[in-house]
């Protein structure tokens, strides 16, 4: 039985893993870079050790130092979180060699799924649907046959390609041959190699993923779907479960396929299969993530399961205690990623010192964050401050709740994307649950509009600044009430009536 876990990560996910460890009575060891001494995962852990410089290469990606720390503190397991070394087969193998339990799948599973081409091959073998097409050089004689098999629209791509060169999108069969020739000649010109292949073009895809768990005894279950189509530059921003798009038949079929896929590689641990889903609910394997996902909490909320607890349970080589037939999605969950960035300034990161946080509370809200009042966000790592998750009995109630908790979440000192997220919650396509991965692009203009000019709110902001100035600035008449709190200084100030000028 695992007694002590080293968490080879930082930020919200390190704290999230430690929370479950604390509940289970498992001791925790934090590792931190020199830039992270004041990070919350250090103070949350039972023990902590500095493993190097701020740069991730020198610390969170340095397997040697992490293994050394695990041995020094006698941790019997390492939880890698997500990112950093979580999908590094070499690190998983190294842990095994050193006799430390890696809380994740085997090095072989990570390797099999780490490379897109090998993963596709593996999935075809396991009869998991992949985006239809060929991967070899397409001969003219095969062109029409293949195209008819996979169905229009198709995309013709240069085998040696990249950057859109030698690429043609074909909607009508009569354009097919011309496009093929054009792609070939462009490929020849660009890469000196005119071989091309053909693939089905998914027009308005949804990005929907299935969570699954496998144990060391060959049992695999799926934990249903997460809709992750709200993305900006391939970064997920908002996720929800269940997907408002797919029907129950598709959901069950995707779950069954995910179980088959995981079983085909003898997967042990928590994993996710990402699918592209087209407008007709045809779904195609995209990739497998062999780790916990950022958005795992929405699955936890809908199923009432603690995925980290299950990961540790599996790592102890116990049998799965959840049964597929007992798992049902209840209600609806939405997650928003809270980032220190400025949506009005092209999402530039906004590091700095967190002055004050007012955390949302009450029914149906969960916050997974690692920030605290006075924390200085380091410039070396990504800008996610945490995640805001709501649960409610229905999608519409979850949406209403998310608006309410975004309203309650106040973070001062750094700019955040909270107002931008609120606008997503008000955007028609999102409200109707009718959106694809093009959502952010399609609504970019509306999402950039701020709440509109309301002179009264602007005036109130000016008044708030002005009063703070009166109470706190050195220019203001000297006041010294007993406790020297702003409220007391404010009360003490100018008790008389009459015109005052500062």
């Amino acid at each position: 039985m695992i007694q002590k876990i080293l968490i080879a990560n930082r930020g919200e996910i390190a704290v999230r893993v430690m929370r479950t460890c604390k509940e289970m009575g498992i001791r925790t060891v934090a590792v931190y870079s020199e830039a992270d001494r004041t990070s919350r995962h250090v103070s949350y852990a039972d023990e902590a050790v500095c493993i190097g410089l701020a740069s991730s290469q020198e610390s969170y990606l340095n397997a040697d130092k992490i293994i050394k720390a695990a041995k020094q503190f006698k941790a019997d397991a390492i939880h890698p979180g997500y990112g950093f070394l979580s999908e590094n087969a070499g690190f998983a193998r190294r842990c095994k060699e050193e006799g430390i339990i890696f809380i994740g799948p085997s090095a072989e599973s990570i390797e099999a799924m780490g490379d897109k081409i090998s993963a596709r091959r593996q999935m075809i073998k396991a009869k998991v649907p992949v985006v239809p097409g060929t991967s070899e050089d397409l001969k003219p004689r095969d062109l029409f046959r293949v195209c008819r098999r996979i169905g229009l629209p198709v995309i013709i791509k240069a085998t040696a390609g990249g950057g859109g060169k030698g690429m043609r999108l074909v909607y009508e069969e009569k354009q097919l041959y011309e496009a093929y020739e054009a792609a070939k000649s462009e490929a020849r010109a660009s890469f000196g190699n005119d071989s091309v292949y053909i693939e089905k073009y998914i027009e308005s895809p949804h990005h929907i993923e299935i969570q699954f768990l496998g144990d060391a005894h060959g049992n695999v279950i799926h934990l249903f779907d997460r809709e992750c189509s709200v993305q900006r530059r391939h970064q997920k921003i908002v996720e929800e479960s269940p997907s408002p798009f797919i029907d129950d038949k598709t959901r069950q079929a995707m779950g069954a396929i995910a179980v088959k896929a995981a079983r085909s590689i003898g997967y042990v641990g928590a994993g996710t299969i990402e699918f592209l889903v087209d407008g007709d609910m045809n779904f195609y394997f995209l990739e497998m993530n062999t780790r916990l996902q950022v958005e795992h909490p929405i699955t936890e909320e809908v199923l009432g399961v603690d995925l980290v607890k299950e990961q540790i349970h599996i790592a102890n080589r116990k049998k799965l205690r959840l049964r597929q037939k007992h798992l049902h999605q209840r209600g609806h969950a939405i997650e928003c990623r809270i980032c220190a960035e400025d949506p009005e300034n092209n999402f530039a990161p906004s590091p700095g010192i967190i002055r004050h946080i007012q955390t949302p509370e009450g029914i149906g809200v969960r916050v997974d964050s690692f920030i605290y009042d006075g924390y200085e966000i380091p410039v070396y790592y990504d800008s996610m401050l945490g995640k805001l998750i709501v649960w409610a009995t229905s999608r519409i109630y979850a949406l209403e709740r998310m608006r309410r908790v975004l309203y309650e979440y106040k973070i001062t000192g750094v700019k955040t994307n909270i107002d931008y997220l609120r606008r997503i919650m008000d955007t028609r396509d999102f409200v109707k649950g009718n959106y694809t991965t093009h959502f952010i692009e399609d609504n970019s203009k509306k999402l950039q509009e701020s709440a509109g000019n309301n002179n009264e709110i602007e005036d109130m902001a000016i008044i708030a600044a002005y009063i703070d100035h009166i109470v706190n600035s050195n220019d203001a008449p000297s006041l010294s009430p007993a406790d020297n709190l702003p409220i007391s200084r404010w009360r003490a100030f100018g008790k008389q009536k009459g015109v005052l000028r500062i």
Partner: protein
Amino acid sequence: MKAKIGNRTCEVELISKDGNRVEISVDGKIYDIDVVMSESGFCSILHEGRSYNAESVRHSEGKYTITTNFRYFDIELSNPQKKYIRGRQSTPEEAQETITSPMPGKIIKIMVSEGMEVKQGDPLIVVEAMKMQSTYTAAQNAIVDKIHVEEGDSVARDQLLISFKTN
């Protein structure tokens, strides 16, 4: 005193105060409001029964960031007379003569050297923060006077990076 908010400049003045009850004029419009605040910067304003909240963060003197419902406002308060008494201070018009880092970060690349002539729009320096790089360009034609940082340096918010002589 003067308040600058976005492109708007206005006159704000405390007219009377009786406990939490104050009259404040913003550009001549008189607000009869009830105001309280906490040490953490939270401010509650009641105006004609409506409840407004603001979280204020005080930067250097007179500069504020105010957060109301989903909106950030950068506000600058200034007292014209005061400025006169204190004498010459850096004003917006002079700001072009230096480049400072708007946020903490790391210097990735410096494209200019001291004494070099730069034209408006020329790239000068690349700063990285939180895995994103920003390139700063010259706001006008100038000569690089001094470069205060080196590639690889970590810089603080508002740290001076490059200063110029205008020609």
